[in-house]
Protein backbone atom coordinates (compact mmCIF):
# COMPACT_ATOMS: atom_id res chain seq x y z
CA UNK A 1 0.00 0.00 0.00
CA UNK A 2 1.57 3.34 -0.99
CA UNK A 3 0.68 6.39 1.01
CA UNK A 4 -1.70 9.02 -0.32
CA UNK A 5 1.14 11.56 -0.36
CA UNK A 6 3.29 9.30 -2.49
CA UNK A 7 0.53 8.57 -4.99
CA UNK A 8 -0.14 12.30 -5.19
CA UNK A 9 3.51 12.88 -6.07
CA UNK A 10 3.56 10.13 -8.66
CA UNK A 11 0.40 11.39 -10.31
CA UNK A 12 1.70 14.97 -10.34
CA UNK A 13 5.02 13.82 -11.79
CA UNK A 14 3.36 11.86 -14.58
CA UNK A 15 1.12 14.77 -15.48
CA UNK A 16 4.08 17.16 -15.67
CA UNK A 17 5.92 14.73 -17.94
CA UNK A 18 2.88 14.45 -20.19
CA UNK A 19 2.59 18.23 -20.40
CA UNK A 20 6.27 18.54 -21.26
CA UNK A 21 5.96 15.91 -23.98
CA UNK A 22 3.24 18.01 -25.56
CA UNK A 23 5.58 20.98 -25.83
CA UNK A 24 8.71 19.15 -26.98
CA UNK A 25 7.69 18.12 -30.52
CA UNK A 26 6.75 21.62 -31.56
CA UNK A 27 10.20 22.87 -30.55
CA UNK A 28 11.91 19.96 -32.25
CA UNK A 29 9.94 20.27 -35.47
CA UNK A 30 10.32 24.01 -35.81
CA UNK A 31 13.94 23.93 -34.65
CA UNK A 32 14.89 21.14 -37.01
CA UNK A 33 13.19 22.69 -40.03
CA UNK A 34 14.78 26.05 -39.32
CA UNK A 35 18.26 24.62 -38.87
CA UNK A 36 18.05 22.46 -41.99
CA UNK A 37 16.22 24.91 -44.20
CA UNK A 38 17.30 28.42 -43.26
CA UNK A 39 20.36 28.18 -45.51
CA UNK A 40 18.12 27.73 -48.56
CA UNK A 41 16.08 30.85 -47.91
CA UNK A 42 17.06 33.78 -50.05
CA UNK A 43 15.32 36.39 -52.14
CA UNK A 44 15.94 34.21 -55.19
CA UNK A 45 14.41 31.20 -53.48
CA UNK A 46 11.22 33.12 -52.73
CA UNK A 47 10.84 34.93 -56.04
CA UNK A 48 12.10 32.63 -58.79
CA UNK A 49 10.78 29.71 -60.76
CA UNK A 50 12.25 26.28 -60.01
CA UNK A 51 14.98 25.21 -62.41
CA UNK A 52 16.93 22.07 -63.29
CA UNK A 53 14.13 19.67 -62.43
CA UNK A 54 13.37 21.65 -59.25
CA UNK A 55 16.87 20.98 -57.93
CA UNK A 56 17.69 24.67 -58.17
CA UNK A 57 15.94 28.03 -58.41
CA UNK A 58 13.02 29.02 -56.26
CA UNK A 59 9.55 28.04 -55.14
CA UNK A 60 7.65 31.16 -56.17
CA UNK A 61 4.89 29.41 -58.15
CA UNK A 62 4.23 27.11 -55.20
CA UNK A 63 3.97 30.08 -52.82
CA UNK A 64 1.59 31.88 -55.18
CA UNK A 65 -0.41 28.70 -55.69
CA UNK A 66 -0.83 28.13 -51.97
CA UNK A 67 -1.85 31.76 -51.48
CA UNK A 68 -4.45 31.44 -54.25
CA UNK A 69 -5.78 28.14 -52.94
CA UNK A 70 -6.01 29.57 -49.42
CA UNK A 71 -7.89 32.59 -50.68
CA UNK A 72 -10.14 30.39 -52.79
CA UNK A 73 -10.86 28.18 -49.80
CA UNK A 74 -11.90 31.21 -47.79
CA UNK A 75 -14.14 32.51 -50.59
CA UNK A 76 -15.90 29.15 -50.80
CA UNK A 77 -16.10 28.29 -47.11
CA UNK A 78 -16.72 31.62 -45.37
CA UNK A 79 -20.13 32.59 -46.80
CA UNK A 80 -21.55 29.07 -46.55
CA UNK A 81 -20.00 28.38 -43.16
CA UNK A 82 -21.05 31.70 -41.68
CA UNK A 83 -24.55 31.38 -43.09
CA UNK A 84 -24.88 27.91 -41.64
CA UNK A 85 -23.59 29.04 -38.26
CA UNK A 86 -26.01 31.99 -38.14
CA UNK A 87 -28.88 29.70 -39.02
CA UNK A 88 -27.97 27.16 -36.35
CA UNK A 89 -27.31 29.73 -33.64
CA UNK A 90 -29.96 32.37 -34.31
CA UNK A 91 -32.83 30.83 -36.23
CA UNK A 92 -33.00 27.08 -35.85
CA UNK A 93 -34.81 25.48 -32.98
CA UNK A 94 -33.91 22.10 -31.59
CA UNK A 95 -35.66 19.77 -34.03
CA UNK A 96 -34.99 16.81 -36.29
CA UNK A 97 -33.65 18.98 -39.14
CA UNK A 98 -31.09 20.81 -37.04
CA UNK A 99 -30.02 17.59 -35.35
CA UNK A 100 -29.46 16.09 -38.81
CA UNK A 101 -27.42 19.15 -39.82
CA UNK A 102 -25.29 18.88 -36.71
CA UNK A 103 -24.64 15.19 -37.28
CA UNK A 104 -23.68 16.00 -40.87
CA UNK A 105 -21.20 18.62 -39.67
CA UNK A 106 -19.60 16.23 -37.18
CA UNK A 107 -19.26 13.57 -39.85
CA UNK A 108 -17.93 16.05 -42.38
CA UNK A 109 -15.17 16.86 -39.88
CA UNK A 110 -14.30 13.18 -39.55
CA UNK A 111 -13.85 12.36 -43.22
CA UNK A 112 -10.18 11.71 -44.14
CA UNK A 113 -8.74 14.44 -46.34
CA UNK A 114 -7.78 12.03 -49.12
CA UNK A 115 -11.45 11.10 -49.45
CA UNK A 116 -12.24 14.78 -49.96
CA UNK A 117 -9.62 14.72 -52.68
CA UNK A 118 -11.25 11.80 -54.40
CA UNK A 119 -14.68 13.41 -54.05
CA UNK A 120 -13.34 16.65 -55.54
CA UNK A 121 -11.85 14.71 -58.43
CA UNK A 122 -15.16 13.02 -59.15
CA UNK A 123 -17.45 16.02 -58.74
CA UNK A 124 -15.49 19.14 -59.66
CA UNK A 125 -12.69 17.92 -61.93
CA UNK A 126 -14.56 15.31 -63.94
CA UNK A 127 -18.33 15.70 -63.59
CA UNK A 128 -18.46 19.51 -63.59
CA UNK A 129 -15.51 19.52 -65.96
CA UNK A 130 -13.49 22.18 -64.13
CA UNK A 131 -10.39 20.09 -64.82
CA UNK A 132 -7.43 20.00 -62.46
CA UNK A 133 -7.65 23.63 -61.46
CA UNK A 134 -7.45 26.22 -58.71
CA UNK A 135 -11.26 26.32 -58.84
CA UNK A 136 -11.67 22.60 -58.23
CA UNK A 137 -8.99 22.65 -55.51
CA UNK A 138 -10.56 25.63 -53.73
CA UNK A 139 -14.00 24.03 -53.78
CA UNK A 140 -12.62 20.78 -52.39
CA UNK A 141 -10.61 22.51 -49.67
CA UNK A 142 -13.55 24.80 -48.96
CA UNK A 143 -15.91 21.91 -48.26
CA UNK A 144 -13.28 20.30 -46.08
CA UNK A 145 -12.96 23.53 -44.08
CA UNK A 146 -16.71 24.05 -43.57
CA UNK A 147 -17.11 22.08 -40.32
CA UNK A 148 -14.34 24.02 -38.58
CA UNK A 149 -15.77 27.37 -39.63
CA UNK A 150 -19.36 26.44 -38.78
CA UNK A 151 -18.58 25.12 -35.33
CA UNK A 152 -16.26 27.95 -34.29
CA UNK A 153 -18.60 30.60 -35.70
CA UNK A 154 -21.62 29.06 -34.01
CA UNK A 155 -19.75 28.97 -30.73
CA UNK A 156 -18.78 32.63 -31.11
CA UNK A 157 -22.37 33.62 -31.90
CA UNK A 158 -23.76 31.70 -28.95
CA UNK A 159 -21.28 33.40 -26.62
CA UNK A 160 -22.94 36.78 -27.27
CA UNK A 161 -25.19 37.42 -24.25
CA UNK A 162 -28.86 36.67 -24.77
CA UNK A 163 -29.70 39.96 -23.05
CA UNK A 164 -28.39 41.91 -26.07
CA UNK A 165 -30.83 40.06 -28.32
CA UNK A 166 -33.65 40.70 -25.86
CA UNK A 167 -32.91 44.44 -25.72
CA UNK A 168 -32.62 44.78 -29.47
CA UNK A 169 -35.88 42.90 -29.97
CA UNK A 170 -37.63 44.94 -27.30
CA UNK A 171 -36.71 48.12 -29.19
CA UNK A 172 -38.53 46.90 -32.27
CA UNK A 173 -35.67 45.08 -33.98
CA UNK A 174 -36.26 42.17 -36.32
CA UNK A 175 -34.17 39.08 -35.87
CA UNK A 176 -31.97 39.98 -38.82
CA UNK A 177 -31.46 43.56 -37.61
CA UNK A 178 -30.45 42.20 -34.24
CA UNK A 179 -27.96 39.83 -35.86
CA UNK A 180 -26.53 42.52 -38.12
CA UNK A 181 -26.21 45.29 -35.59
CA UNK A 182 -25.39 43.52 -32.34
CA UNK A 183 -24.76 39.80 -32.51
CA UNK A 184 -22.47 39.60 -35.54
CA UNK A 185 -20.18 42.52 -34.62
CA UNK A 186 -19.75 41.08 -31.13
CA UNK A 187 -19.04 37.58 -32.44
CA UNK A 188 -16.75 38.75 -35.25
CA UNK A 189 -13.39 38.28 -33.50
CA UNK A 190 -14.27 34.68 -32.66
CA UNK A 191 -15.56 34.10 -36.16
CA UNK A 192 -12.41 35.53 -37.77
CA UNK A 193 -10.25 33.36 -35.54
CA UNK A 194 -12.22 30.31 -36.61
CA UNK A 195 -11.95 31.23 -40.28
CA UNK A 196 -8.18 31.66 -40.05
CA UNK A 197 -7.68 28.41 -38.17
CA UNK A 198 -9.84 26.53 -40.67
CA UNK A 199 -8.19 28.04 -43.72
CA UNK A 200 -4.74 27.52 -42.25
CA UNK A 201 -5.49 23.82 -41.95
CA UNK A 202 -6.48 23.78 -45.62
CA UNK A 203 -3.34 25.65 -46.66
CA UNK A 204 -1.15 22.83 -45.38
CA UNK A 205 -3.15 19.94 -46.85
CA UNK A 206 -1.76 17.80 -49.65
CA UNK A 207 -4.30 15.04 -50.22
CA UNK A 208 -7.33 17.18 -51.20
CA UNK A 209 -5.37 19.04 -53.90
CA UNK A 210 -3.47 15.99 -55.09
CA UNK A 211 -6.12 15.10 -57.69
CA UNK A 212 -7.89 18.43 -57.96
CA UNK A 213 -5.46 21.33 -58.31
CA UNK A 214 -1.80 20.52 -57.91
CA UNK A 215 0.72 20.43 -60.72
CA UNK A 216 3.85 18.31 -60.42
CA UNK A 217 6.07 20.86 -62.13
CA UNK A 218 4.78 24.08 -63.65
CA UNK A 219 7.41 26.79 -63.81
CA UNK A 220 4.97 29.64 -64.50
CA UNK A 221 2.18 31.37 -62.65
CA UNK A 222 -1.40 30.17 -63.17
CA UNK A 223 -3.24 32.19 -65.80
CA UNK A 224 -6.77 31.77 -64.45
CA UNK A 225 -8.79 29.85 -61.87
CA UNK A 226 -9.18 27.09 -64.45
CA UNK A 227 -5.42 26.63 -64.54
CA UNK A 228 -3.63 24.11 -62.39
CA UNK A 229 -1.00 25.32 -60.00
CA UNK A 230 1.95 24.28 -57.90
CA UNK A 231 1.37 24.42 -54.16
CA UNK A 232 3.77 24.26 -51.22
CA UNK A 233 2.57 21.06 -49.48
CA UNK A 234 2.39 19.09 -52.70
CA UNK A 235 5.66 20.54 -53.94
CA UNK A 236 7.25 19.44 -50.69
CA UNK A 237 5.91 15.93 -51.20
CA UNK A 238 7.22 15.86 -54.76
CA UNK A 239 10.72 17.08 -54.01
CA UNK A 240 10.99 14.84 -50.95
CA UNK A 241 9.97 11.61 -52.64
CA UNK A 242 9.82 11.92 -56.42
CA UNK A 243 13.01 13.72 -57.45
CA UNK A 244 16.31 11.85 -57.12
CA UNK A 245 19.37 13.87 -56.15
CA UNK A 246 17.33 16.59 -54.51
CA UNK A 247 19.37 18.87 -52.20
CA UNK A 248 18.12 18.41 -48.61
CA UNK A 249 18.40 22.13 -48.05
CA UNK A 250 15.78 22.88 -50.71
CA UNK A 251 13.39 20.36 -49.16
CA UNK A 252 13.70 21.91 -45.74
CA UNK A 253 13.70 25.40 -47.18
CA UNK A 254 10.33 24.64 -48.76
CA UNK A 255 9.07 23.16 -45.52
CA UNK A 256 10.21 26.29 -43.72
CA UNK A 257 8.30 28.56 -46.10
CA UNK A 258 5.13 26.50 -45.60
CA UNK A 259 5.60 26.46 -41.85
CA UNK A 260 6.13 30.21 -41.65
CA UNK A 261 3.03 30.82 -43.78
CA UNK A 262 0.81 28.62 -41.63
CA UNK A 263 2.25 29.82 -38.32
CA UNK A 264 1.84 33.47 -39.31
CA UNK A 265 -1.84 32.85 -39.97
CA UNK A 266 -1.97 31.29 -36.53
CA UNK A 267 -0.28 34.31 -35.03
CA UNK A 268 -2.71 36.68 -36.71
CA UNK A 269 -5.62 34.69 -35.28
CA UNK A 270 -4.13 34.86 -31.80
CA UNK A 271 -3.50 38.60 -32.06
CA UNK A 272 -7.06 39.28 -33.22
CA UNK A 273 -8.46 37.24 -30.37
CA UNK A 274 -6.28 39.01 -27.80
CA UNK A 275 -7.02 42.45 -29.14
CA UNK A 276 -10.79 42.03 -29.05
CA UNK A 277 -10.90 40.15 -25.78
CA UNK A 278 -9.44 43.23 -24.14
CA UNK A 279 -12.09 45.46 -25.69
CA UNK A 280 -15.01 43.24 -24.90
CA UNK A 281 -17.45 44.66 -22.38
CA UNK A 282 -19.30 41.45 -21.46
Amino acid at each position, binding site marked *: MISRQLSERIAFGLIIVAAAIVILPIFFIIGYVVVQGLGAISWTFLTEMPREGMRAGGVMPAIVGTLLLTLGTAIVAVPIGLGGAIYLSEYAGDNATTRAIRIAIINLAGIPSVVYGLFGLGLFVIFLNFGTSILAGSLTLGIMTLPVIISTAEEALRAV*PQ*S*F*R*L*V*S*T*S*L*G*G*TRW*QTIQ*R*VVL*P*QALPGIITGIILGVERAAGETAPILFTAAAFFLPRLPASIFDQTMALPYHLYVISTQVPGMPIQIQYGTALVLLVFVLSLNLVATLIRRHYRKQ*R*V*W
Partner: protein
Amino acid sequence: MSENPRPDVKIRIEHLNVRYSDGTESLHDISMDIYTHQINVLFGPSGGGKSTLLRMLNRLNDLADVSEQEGRILLDGENVLARDYDVLQLRRRLGIVFARPVPLPMSIYENVIYGLRLAGVRDKQQLDATVERALKQGALWDEVSDRLSDSAYDLSGGQQQRLCVARSLALQPEVIMLDEPTSGLDPISTFKVEQTLQQLKRDYTIVIVPHSVQQAARIADWAAFFLQGDLIEWDEGRQLFTDPQDQRTEDYITGRFG
Protein backbone atom coordinates in the same frame (compact mmCIF):
# COMPACT_ATOMS: atom_id res chain seq x y z
CA MET B 1 -62.49 47.89 -4.24
CA SER B 2 -62.48 51.65 -4.07
CA GLU B 3 -65.43 53.78 -5.05
CA ASN B 4 -63.61 56.50 -7.04
CA PRO B 5 -64.16 56.69 -10.79
CA ARG B 6 -61.53 54.66 -12.55
CA PRO B 7 -58.89 56.08 -14.93
CA ASP B 8 -58.92 55.18 -18.62
CA VAL B 9 -57.92 51.64 -19.47
CA LYS B 10 -54.76 51.40 -21.56
CA ILE B 11 -54.38 47.64 -21.55
CA ARG B 12 -57.07 45.11 -20.63
CA ILE B 13 -55.90 41.61 -19.81
CA GLU B 14 -58.59 38.96 -20.16
CA HIS B 15 -58.30 35.40 -18.85
CA LEU B 16 -54.63 35.12 -19.70
CA ASN B 17 -53.08 31.69 -19.30
CA VAL B 18 -49.41 31.05 -20.03
CA ARG B 19 -47.20 28.05 -19.48
CA TYR B 20 -43.55 27.57 -20.43
CA SER B 21 -42.39 24.29 -21.93
CA ASP B 22 -40.05 23.60 -19.04
CA GLY B 23 -42.85 24.08 -16.49
CA THR B 24 -41.32 27.15 -14.80
CA GLU B 25 -43.26 30.34 -13.98
CA SER B 26 -46.73 30.36 -15.46
CA LEU B 27 -49.86 32.48 -15.31
CA HIS B 28 -53.36 31.23 -14.49
CA ASP B 29 -56.44 33.03 -15.68
CA ILE B 30 -55.21 36.58 -15.16
CA SER B 31 -57.71 39.40 -15.72
CA MET B 32 -56.84 42.99 -14.87
CA ASP B 33 -56.45 46.44 -16.36
CA ILE B 34 -53.48 48.72 -16.84
CA TYR B 35 -54.57 52.35 -16.40
CA THR B 36 -53.43 55.29 -18.45
CA HIS B 37 -51.05 57.78 -16.80
CA GLN B 38 -50.86 55.71 -13.64
CA ILE B 39 -48.07 53.78 -12.01
CA ASN B 40 -49.36 50.22 -12.25
CA VAL B 41 -47.44 47.98 -9.89
CA LEU B 42 -47.16 44.19 -10.23
CA PHE B 43 -45.67 42.73 -7.06
CA GLY B 44 -45.27 39.51 -5.13
CA PRO B 45 -42.67 36.86 -4.39
CA SER B 46 -40.34 35.80 -7.21
CA GLY B 47 -41.60 33.15 -9.58
CA GLY B 48 -45.08 34.63 -9.36
CA GLY B 49 -45.36 35.42 -13.05
CA LYS B 50 -44.83 39.19 -12.99
CA SER B 51 -41.97 39.24 -15.47
CA THR B 52 -43.80 36.78 -17.65
CA LEU B 53 -46.80 39.10 -17.72
CA LEU B 54 -44.61 42.07 -18.72
CA ARG B 55 -43.06 40.06 -21.52
CA MET B 56 -46.47 38.93 -22.69
CA LEU B 57 -47.64 42.52 -23.02
CA ASN B 58 -45.02 43.42 -25.65
CA ARG B 59 -44.74 39.83 -26.89
CA LEU B 60 -41.10 39.53 -25.97
CA ASN B 61 -42.09 36.06 -24.89
CA ASP B 62 -42.26 35.15 -28.57
CA LEU B 63 -38.51 34.52 -28.11
CA ALA B 64 -39.11 32.20 -25.16
CA ASP B 65 -40.29 28.65 -25.18
CA VAL B 66 -43.97 29.09 -24.38
CA SER B 67 -45.96 25.91 -24.72
CA GLU B 68 -49.40 27.17 -23.87
CA GLN B 69 -51.04 30.54 -24.22
CA GLU B 70 -54.71 31.54 -23.99
CA GLY B 71 -56.71 34.67 -23.40
CA ARG B 72 -56.51 38.19 -24.74
CA ILE B 73 -54.44 41.29 -24.13
CA LEU B 74 -56.22 44.35 -25.46
CA LEU B 75 -54.07 47.41 -26.12
CA ASP B 76 -56.45 50.28 -26.86
CA GLY B 77 -59.00 47.59 -27.59
CA GLU B 78 -56.92 45.54 -30.01
CA ASN B 79 -55.74 42.02 -29.15
CA VAL B 80 -51.94 42.05 -29.31
CA LEU B 81 -51.82 38.27 -29.10
CA ALA B 82 -53.58 38.01 -32.46
CA ARG B 83 -51.45 36.20 -34.99
CA ASP B 84 -51.32 39.05 -37.51
CA TYR B 85 -50.71 41.82 -34.96
CA ASP B 86 -47.75 44.07 -35.90
CA VAL B 87 -45.29 42.96 -33.23
CA LEU B 88 -42.49 45.36 -34.22
CA GLN B 89 -44.85 48.31 -33.89
CA LEU B 90 -46.18 46.92 -30.59
CA ARG B 91 -42.71 46.80 -29.09
CA ARG B 92 -42.13 50.41 -30.05
CA ARG B 93 -45.35 51.38 -28.29
CA LEU B 94 -44.51 49.41 -25.13
CA GLY B 95 -40.97 50.10 -23.98
CA ILE B 96 -39.32 47.80 -21.45
CA VAL B 97 -36.46 48.23 -18.99
CA PHE B 98 -34.91 45.15 -17.43
CA ALA B 99 -33.68 44.41 -13.92
CA ARG B 100 -30.01 44.40 -14.81
CA PRO B 101 -29.07 47.39 -16.98
CA VAL B 102 -28.14 46.10 -20.42
CA PRO B 103 -26.39 48.83 -22.40
CA LEU B 104 -25.66 47.66 -25.92
CA PRO B 105 -21.94 47.48 -26.70
CA MET B 106 -21.81 50.89 -28.36
CA SER B 107 -21.63 54.56 -27.40
CA ILE B 108 -24.11 56.37 -25.14
CA TYR B 109 -25.44 58.23 -28.18
CA GLU B 110 -25.87 55.08 -30.27
CA ASN B 111 -27.62 53.35 -27.39
CA VAL B 112 -30.25 56.06 -27.15
CA ILE B 113 -31.00 56.13 -30.87
CA TYR B 114 -30.75 52.37 -31.40
CA GLY B 115 -34.52 51.99 -31.79
CA LEU B 116 -34.71 54.90 -34.22
CA ARG B 117 -31.89 53.44 -36.31
CA LEU B 118 -33.80 50.16 -36.49
CA ALA B 119 -36.78 52.09 -37.79
CA GLY B 120 -34.57 53.64 -40.46
CA VAL B 121 -34.35 57.21 -39.14
CA ARG B 122 -31.29 58.89 -40.65
CA ASP B 123 -31.94 62.59 -40.10
CA LYS B 124 -29.05 63.79 -37.94
CA GLN B 125 -31.02 66.68 -36.46
CA GLN B 126 -33.87 64.44 -35.44
CA LEU B 127 -31.45 61.95 -33.89
CA ASP B 128 -29.60 64.65 -31.96
CA ALA B 129 -32.84 66.16 -30.71
CA THR B 130 -34.11 62.74 -29.62
CA VAL B 131 -30.92 62.00 -27.70
CA GLU B 132 -31.20 65.27 -25.78
CA ARG B 133 -34.92 64.88 -25.05
CA ALA B 134 -34.69 61.21 -24.02
CA LEU B 135 -31.63 61.70 -21.81
CA LYS B 136 -33.29 64.70 -20.13
CA GLN B 137 -36.44 62.69 -19.49
CA GLY B 138 -34.29 59.87 -18.15
CA ALA B 139 -32.53 62.37 -15.83
CA LEU B 140 -29.12 61.58 -17.29
CA TRP B 141 -28.46 64.48 -19.66
CA ASP B 142 -26.57 66.69 -17.22
CA GLU B 143 -24.16 63.89 -16.40
CA VAL B 144 -23.33 62.74 -19.92
CA SER B 145 -24.04 65.62 -22.34
CA ASP B 146 -20.33 66.24 -22.86
CA ARG B 147 -19.35 62.63 -23.51
CA LEU B 148 -22.07 61.12 -25.65
CA SER B 149 -19.56 59.22 -27.78
CA ASP B 150 -18.10 57.37 -24.79
CA SER B 151 -18.91 53.70 -24.40
CA ALA B 152 -22.11 53.12 -22.44
CA TYR B 153 -20.10 50.73 -20.30
CA ASP B 154 -18.08 53.64 -18.89
CA LEU B 155 -21.18 54.70 -16.94
CA SER B 156 -21.96 53.64 -13.38
CA GLY B 157 -24.68 51.07 -12.74
CA GLY B 158 -27.27 53.71 -11.86
CA GLN B 159 -26.38 55.77 -14.92
CA GLN B 160 -26.57 52.68 -17.12
CA GLN B 161 -30.08 52.00 -15.87
CA ARG B 162 -31.18 55.56 -16.56
CA LEU B 163 -29.63 55.20 -20.00
CA CYS B 164 -31.81 52.15 -20.56
CA VAL B 165 -34.85 54.17 -19.50
CA ALA B 166 -33.82 56.93 -21.91
CA ARG B 167 -33.31 54.37 -24.68
CA SER B 168 -36.92 53.24 -24.25
CA LEU B 169 -38.17 56.83 -24.08
CA ALA B 170 -36.39 57.69 -27.33
CA LEU B 171 -39.06 55.77 -29.21
CA GLN B 172 -41.80 57.81 -27.52
CA PRO B 173 -43.65 54.74 -26.36
CA GLU B 174 -47.11 54.93 -24.84
CA VAL B 175 -46.36 52.48 -22.05
CA ILE B 176 -43.11 52.00 -20.15
CA MET B 177 -42.63 48.68 -18.43
CA LEU B 178 -39.91 48.28 -15.83
CA ASP B 179 -38.88 44.89 -14.47
CA GLU B 180 -37.26 45.48 -11.06
CA PRO B 181 -35.33 48.42 -12.50
CA THR B 182 -33.72 49.34 -9.19
CA SER B 183 -32.77 45.91 -7.91
CA GLY B 184 -29.07 46.50 -8.49
CA LEU B 185 -29.00 50.14 -7.42
CA ASP B 186 -28.06 51.96 -4.23
CA PRO B 187 -30.80 53.87 -2.34
CA ILE B 188 -29.88 57.25 -3.85
CA SER B 189 -30.00 55.97 -7.43
CA THR B 190 -33.22 54.16 -6.57
CA PHE B 191 -34.73 57.36 -5.27
CA LYS B 192 -33.74 59.13 -8.50
CA VAL B 193 -35.41 56.47 -10.60
CA GLU B 194 -38.59 56.61 -8.49
CA GLN B 195 -38.65 60.38 -8.81
CA THR B 196 -38.22 60.07 -12.54
CA LEU B 197 -41.21 57.71 -12.67
CA GLN B 198 -43.44 60.27 -10.97
CA GLN B 199 -42.60 62.74 -13.72
CA LEU B 200 -42.90 60.21 -16.51
CA LYS B 201 -46.41 59.11 -15.60
CA ARG B 202 -47.72 62.46 -16.78
CA ASP B 203 -46.79 61.56 -20.33
CA TYR B 204 -46.67 57.78 -20.21
CA THR B 205 -48.41 54.81 -18.70
CA ILE B 206 -46.10 53.00 -16.28
CA VAL B 207 -46.11 49.30 -15.48
CA ILE B 208 -43.50 48.32 -12.94
CA VAL B 209 -42.40 45.23 -11.08
CA PRO B 210 -40.84 46.78 -7.95
CA HIS B 211 -37.93 45.13 -6.18
CA SER B 212 -39.53 45.27 -2.73
CA VAL B 213 -42.91 45.58 -1.03
CA GLN B 214 -41.79 48.92 0.39
CA GLN B 215 -41.09 50.25 -3.06
CA ALA B 216 -44.43 48.92 -4.27
CA ALA B 217 -46.22 50.77 -1.46
CA ARG B 218 -44.25 53.98 -2.11
CA ILE B 219 -45.01 54.32 -5.78
CA ALA B 220 -48.18 52.37 -6.59
CA ASP B 221 -51.23 54.14 -7.94
CA TRP B 222 -52.62 50.72 -8.71
CA ALA B 223 -51.21 47.48 -7.40
CA ALA B 224 -51.65 43.84 -8.32
CA PHE B 225 -50.42 41.06 -6.02
CA PHE B 226 -49.19 37.92 -7.77
CA LEU B 227 -48.56 34.61 -6.06
CA GLN B 228 -47.36 31.55 -7.97
CA GLY B 229 -49.02 32.55 -11.18
CA ASP B 230 -52.29 33.69 -9.68
CA LEU B 231 -53.52 37.24 -9.39
CA ILE B 232 -54.56 37.34 -5.72
CA GLU B 233 -55.65 40.93 -5.41
CA TRP B 234 -55.74 44.02 -7.55
CA ASP B 235 -56.78 47.41 -6.30
CA GLU B 236 -55.85 51.03 -5.87
CA GLY B 237 -52.47 51.26 -4.16
CA ARG B 238 -53.52 53.08 -1.01
CA GLN B 239 -56.44 50.67 -0.58
CA LEU B 240 -54.40 47.53 -1.11
CA PHE B 241 -51.51 48.51 1.12
CA THR B 242 -53.66 49.79 4.01
CA ASP B 243 -56.63 47.45 3.92
CA PRO B 244 -55.95 44.33 1.86
CA GLN B 245 -58.97 42.10 1.27
CA ASP B 246 -57.13 38.79 0.97
CA GLN B 247 -55.31 37.20 3.90
CA ARG B 248 -52.39 36.18 1.67
CA THR B 249 -51.91 39.77 0.51
CA GLU B 250 -51.91 40.94 4.10
CA ASP B 251 -49.44 38.27 5.14
CA TYR B 252 -47.10 39.22 2.32
CA ILE B 253 -47.16 42.99 2.77
CA THR B 254 -46.77 42.71 6.53
CA GLY B 255 -43.75 40.49 5.97
CA ARG B 256 -45.15 37.23 7.28
CA PHE B 257 -43.76 35.48 4.21
CA GLY B 258 -41.85 36.45 1.09
